[in-house]
């Protein structure tokens, strides 16, 4: 016990450098986002009028508070472009997460029932795509889905369609891309809870007369709910702010919030509105983030 305490002090000192790094490069930048979301747009470089300058002291800051501009946020809630991109982000994230659960659960369940020595290999096979470039995997799908791509060729050869189907720039392609990219994030937490389950529980259930189906719904599924929660959050949160996949695979008709932010920033050069969109996106993410944080803490620290 005492040695723990002797060790704890230098270990805490070890945290100082990463702590400062994260405060400077993670926490402080959010302050800037907030600050710029409250400032006016300007046609200049950088394209915004600074709200306040810390070098001018408190009086300047107080004066600046009087003229804080909420125009950007007012624009966000009054312009239907922003509202619809918000709704679309939520709809896409919820739909994708449900599809991921439906596809990921059977795969994770199959993995957990594999013979013990094959399980690490299966896990490796699920992790490898996570390591391979995300952009390259989306590009691989563009190869397949394009007008004269492999999918249309196969469908034509099988006489399932009479003329090539338009796959690219559709919601179908976007959902396919999202599901493909996030599948490992869904499978791994599910597999982690399913593989830890005590097989004797299922034996007990069958001894007591329940069918495999009953045993699954009364036992396996409820016990795997923490994995379901972790997997769903791990997919839902990043999908909400997704940019690359909808940009490359979905049509240009309606945008997700990440695309709107990108458009305002890079094309319209309206930094304050982009910053306001980021703040709004962050607000949307706070509840699932807190939930995820609680789950993480429970698994990391409760498991010890």
């Amino acid at each position, binding site marked *: 016990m005492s040695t723990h305490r002797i060790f704890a002090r230098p270990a805490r000192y070890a945290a100082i450098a990463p702590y400062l790094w994260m405060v400077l490069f993670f926490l402080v930048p*959010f302050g800037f986002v907030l600050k710029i979301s409250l400032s006016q747009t300007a046609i200049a470089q950088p394209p915004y009028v600074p709200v306040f300058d810390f070098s001018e002291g408190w009086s300047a800051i107080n004066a600046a508070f009087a003229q804080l501009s909420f125009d950007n946020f007012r624009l966000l809630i009054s312009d239907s472009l922003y509202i619809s991109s918000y709704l679309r982000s939520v709809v896409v994230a919820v739909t994708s997460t449900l599809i991921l659960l439906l596809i990921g659960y059977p795969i994770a369940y199959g*993995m957990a029932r594999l013979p013990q020595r094959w399980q690490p290999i299966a896990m490796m096979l699920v992790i*490898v795509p996570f*390591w*391979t470039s995300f*952009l390259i995997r989306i590009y691989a799908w563009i*190869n397949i889905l394009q007008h004269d791509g492999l999918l249309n060729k196969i469908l034509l050869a099988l006489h399932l369609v009479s003329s090539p189907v338009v796959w690219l720039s559709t919601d179908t392609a976007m959902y396919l891309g999202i599901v493909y990219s996030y599948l490992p994030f869904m499978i791994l937490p599910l597999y982690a809870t399913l593989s830890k389950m005590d097989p004797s529980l299922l034996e007990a259930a069958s001894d007591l007369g329940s069918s495999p189906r009953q045993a699954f719904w009364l036992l396996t599924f409820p016990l795997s709910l923490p994995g379901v929660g972790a997997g769903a959050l791990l997919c839902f949160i990043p999908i909400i702010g997704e940019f690359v996949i909808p940009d*490359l695979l979905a049509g240009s008709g309606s945008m997700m919030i990440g695309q709107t932010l990108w458009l305002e920033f890079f094309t319209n050069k309206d930094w304050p509105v982009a910053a306001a969109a980021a703040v709004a*996106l962050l607000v949307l993410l706070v509840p699932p983030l807190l939930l995820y944080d609680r789950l993480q803490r429970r698994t990391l620290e409760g498991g010890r």
Partner: protein
Amino acid sequence: MMARRIGRMSPFNITALALGMAFLYLPIVILVIYSFNASRLVTVWGGWSLRWYHESFNDRAMLDAAWMSLRVAAVSATIATLLGTLAAVGLVRGERFRGRTLFSGMLYAPLVMPEVISGLSLLLLFVALNAERGFWTVTIAHTTLTMCFVTVVVQSRLASLDRSLEEAAMDLGCDPVQAFVRVTLPLILPAIAASWMLAFTLSLDDVVIASFTTGPGSATLPIRIYSEVRLGVKPEINAICTIVIALIAVLIVIASLASNLSSSEAKSAAPL
């Protein structure tokens, strides 16, 4: 025992696994095969050829971007591994300290934070600091993201490590720092190596954060690929993607060897 476990696999289980793996791997396999296609038309098979590899090696802009990406990935992965390991030590061995909740929150949040937010917020910081955008700003941005992944990997290894080993070292006269360097560090070294490689590949993969934080004239490889992909499928891109996949595959093999080493070492160290 074995037979009973295989018997537990229903046809449904086997089908789900097989379809799942096919879904994960077929697109990549198709991409790799088509990178060796002689035809300029991406979808017409014109025989095997290395033509597109040859052409992509003559693409000056692409080579510059690749070199920039490799440098950013190497430097950011190194700093991230250092900081992430320190953070993991602080979190696991430091017990409770003031601001621990904030610290762990800051380290978990970037794992799921949409990249558009991380990218935009870092860019606004760099603009406010009047920093020249280019190699270093992208490197700092990638370090911030990837050190969180390093922390999680090293943290879970450290948490599973038997504490009595460090205590024994200290009973034998080591001070805490010596005990860490001589006992703990060698045991977690494979996990540290694996997390360096994870950080490297994550940096090599990122397009969103790099787009925000880079300056004119210093595009990374993913930024170049992204702008080409937006214009459509090109056989050169297939070749470049295949090279990146091959590079990452080599890293994965090394990382998995390292982590196998790690688990076998942990087993051999346990009876000590």
